[in-house]
């Protein structure tokens, strides 16, 4: 039914620190993924200025014909965004769960350098568990 295509995490300066592909399209070229991340970072920042209402915190949802893009920005400026099938539910909750995994298994890891690409085994392990569970729950419905 509904599925996640990919997950991106970008640091506060727009650099890509984590990219995972779940769709059937296969992994994007590294340079392309970096470009995409900085593109989204810029669009997110511009949208804050363009918004007709005050106190806008940036794009949260982008809906297109073939995909939806849900974005979550933490208070520190780290952005988590997921590209998924149109109409997928509960992506905001998923992003919050992923944020919690990030704070636990990345930030509490003494071998992780801030703003650098994430290379934490425990983070990958728990993330795939969460995605599996999510997928299973979606298929169950």
């Amino acid at each position: 039914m509904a599925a996640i295509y990919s997950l991106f995490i970008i640091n506060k300066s727009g650099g890509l620190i984590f990219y995972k592909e779940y769709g059937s399209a296969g992994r994007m070229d590294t340079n392309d993924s970096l470009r995409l991340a900085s593109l989204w970072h810029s669009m997110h920042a511009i949208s804050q200025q363009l918004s007709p209402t005050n106190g806008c915190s940036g794009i949260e949802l982008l809906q297109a014909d073939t995909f939806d893009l849900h974005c979550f920005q933490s208070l520190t400026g780290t952005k988590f965004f997921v590209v998924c099938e149109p109409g997928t539910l509960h992506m905001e909750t998923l992003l919050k769960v992923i944020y919690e995994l990030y704070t636990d298994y990345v930030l509490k890891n003494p071998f992780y350098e801030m703003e650098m690409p994430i290379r934490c085994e425990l983070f990958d392990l728990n993330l795939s568990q969460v995605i599996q569970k999510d997928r299973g729950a979606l298929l169950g419905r």
Partner: protein
Amino acid sequence: MIGVGKIKQYTNVLDKPLSRGRQEVSLSAFAFLFSELVQYNQTQVDNISELERRLEDAGYAVGARVLELLCHREKGNRRETRLLGILSFVHSTVWKVLFGKVADSLEKGTEHEDEYMISEKELLVNRFISVPKDMGAFNCGAFVAGIVKGVLDGAGFPAVVTAHFVPVDGQQRPRTTILIKFAEEVLRRESRLG
């Protein structure tokens, strides 16, 4: 006012009773503090064995103090003289107070008479830590090994204590084993005591 008791004022801080203290500490707070401890030590050393030794030294200080505190609080100032006694003290009481649960298992080494092993599925200090591949077999559990060493040394059972990852079939994450190798004199005394 009704029901107001008079709080006894202690002039000397040494006369104040040792309170039980707050039983629970935030795991996140500890995890961040421990992470900083590891990071700080990393800047001070050139290689991995140095880092392990430093973590062990930090744990040693904790172990020595924990022994004193627990002997007073939990055991009513009784002193352990037998090997199995001190080992079960470490395995149950020390673990319960420090990590909230008793250790998973305590085993005697099959190959050597002087080796004992305390195993844990995952040490609390390692809960959020992923060691990068280029650091090899480094284990932040060296801190816990240091704590055990501190307790044993203070109780009169000198030993060499190290922490190891032991891969387990069917599990992605390896188990952690604290290997305790007692000094000669401990075994001689133990056999003398019968």
